[in-house]
């Protein structure tokens, strides 16, 4: 009678330890990767929002307040347009009924120190849902009106 082809029970137990090691370490790997994805993308989107608000507010700051198109309207439109190309979770800042994107622009102060305050707040849905991340992306810029 030849040797059995079945591994001994001890060997089977050792093989199982690999699975256990893997099972224990997998959440750690997934956690590291999730954290990397989530926060890299979160900071990227904050940077994108910051640039959109800065450029949009700058656009509005050069519009004469007495014109047919006011500085706040021009800034608001420019910020929404700048964000529309971001492909940010399908959030469409141009769509008036998309309440996940809130652009706020106001004219503050008096001539000759009238300022244009611009901000954006967008909901930030987690990519993986595994790591707690801030639930919104916000950015703000204040510009002095060029023409007062």
């Amino acid at each position, binding site marked *: 009678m030849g*040797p059995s082809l079945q591994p001994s029970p001890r*060997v089977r137990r*050792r093989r199982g*330890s*690999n699975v256990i*090691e*893997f099972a224990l*370490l997998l959440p*750690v*790997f997934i956690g*590291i*990767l999730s*954290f*990397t994805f989530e*926060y*890299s*993308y*979160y*900071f*990227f989107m*904050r*940077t994108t929002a*910051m*640039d959109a*608000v*800065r450029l949009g*507010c*700058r656009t509005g*700051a*050069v519009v*004469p307040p*007495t*014109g047919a198109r006011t500085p706040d309207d021009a800034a608001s439109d420019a910020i929404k347009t700048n964000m529309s190309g971001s492909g940010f979770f399908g959030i469409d800042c141009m769509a008036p009924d998309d309440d996940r994107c809130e652009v706020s622009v106001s004219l503050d102060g008096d001539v*000759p120190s009238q300022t244009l305050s611009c901000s954006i707040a967008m909901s930030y849905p987690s990519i993986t849902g595994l790591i707690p991340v801030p639930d919104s992306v916000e950015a*703000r*810029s*204040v*510009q*002095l*009106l*060029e*023409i*007062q």
Partner: protein
Amino acid sequence: MSTPPSPSPRRPDRRHRRRGNYAILVGLSSTGILGMGAVAVDTAYVHLVEAQAQAISDAAAHAALVTLKLSGDEDQARNTAKAFVNAHKLVGKMADIDIDSDIVFGSWDFDLQQFDASASYVNSVQVSVNKTDSSVNGSFNTLLMGMFGTSHQNAQTQSPATGAMRFREIVIVQDVTGSFAQEIDDARDADLAFLDAVYADDFPGDRIGMVTFVGSATEYTPLEYVNDDYSAIRSDWANLDWCDRSYYPYYYYGPPYYHSAPQMMPCNYQNSYYLSYYDSGTAQGTGLDAAIDMLLSSGDDYSTKTIIIVSDGQPECVYRSSDWAAEAACTAAREQDAYDAADWAEENNISVFSVSFNDTYNATQSAVMEALVRGNGEFYETPDPADLPDILEDIAEKIPIALVQ
């Protein structure tokens, strides 16, 4: 009967040796993966801080420049810049700058795209918002790189934000037809007030010129540097008058029909021989065309180019003949020429401000003059010639500045 060889105690089973390999590999690779993740996250974070700092310095440079334009006071501009920096947050805290070292005034060369802090004139300001150990904002902690011994990062703007005023090239297109005879003094005062306002801004690259028109146009003064040639320009503009009508047969009529102003274009300018007795009418389009030519041949592609047209009439031809159809067609063509000229200005990024002096309200004149506005220009209308100086001073304040960085 043979017995299987017993395993040597010095050479454990290969399976024994493999036990724990995963843990070692995972331990080693986790460090690498965690390190790469830390680099990815912190790189994104540092970029965010840099973007915030850049946005703040942009806003501050712009505010300083606007203040400098309005007040001409560098100290006031510095305070405005600091106030705008303080109005923003950098890494969750109020941003700040050193009002002396982080704000620098100088000149910006648009051709070379270079800032020169030692230049003799100021048309530019640089603001740096830094986040470094030595800056007023201090450094900031990275999120994960601390695991690898880097607990903070010196982030600062990629380059200081530079706000620069484009020099202005402005041409006044002045109606000098006979109908302006009664108001030419106010128009002259307005042009001089505008010149003074531009001169008061004290920007060395600003240039100004004037085109006058009746039924055709001519250059009254070329584009000249306001700072360098202010006295000469003012002297020329002080002699502005309505068109010259010191020719036959007006010798015999006397004033107000006869008008000797040899420095001005003749009222029958470019009329045909058969119409040489008559004024040539009003053609805003020819004035705009001449002004656009002047601006496009200035040699400065970076300046803010602006035309201010001042007129008291609608485009019209004066045939003094019974061919009313031909006269109407000529008038319509002159109106269209004016619109075409305004479009040409817009195509070349030239703004057009339009000032209508409309004492006996003429709706057609008002509509035509308003339709000539282009770019950053605006429409003004008044029945009182005494308002003209204030209007042109207002326009002088509205010709925009531009940020570069």
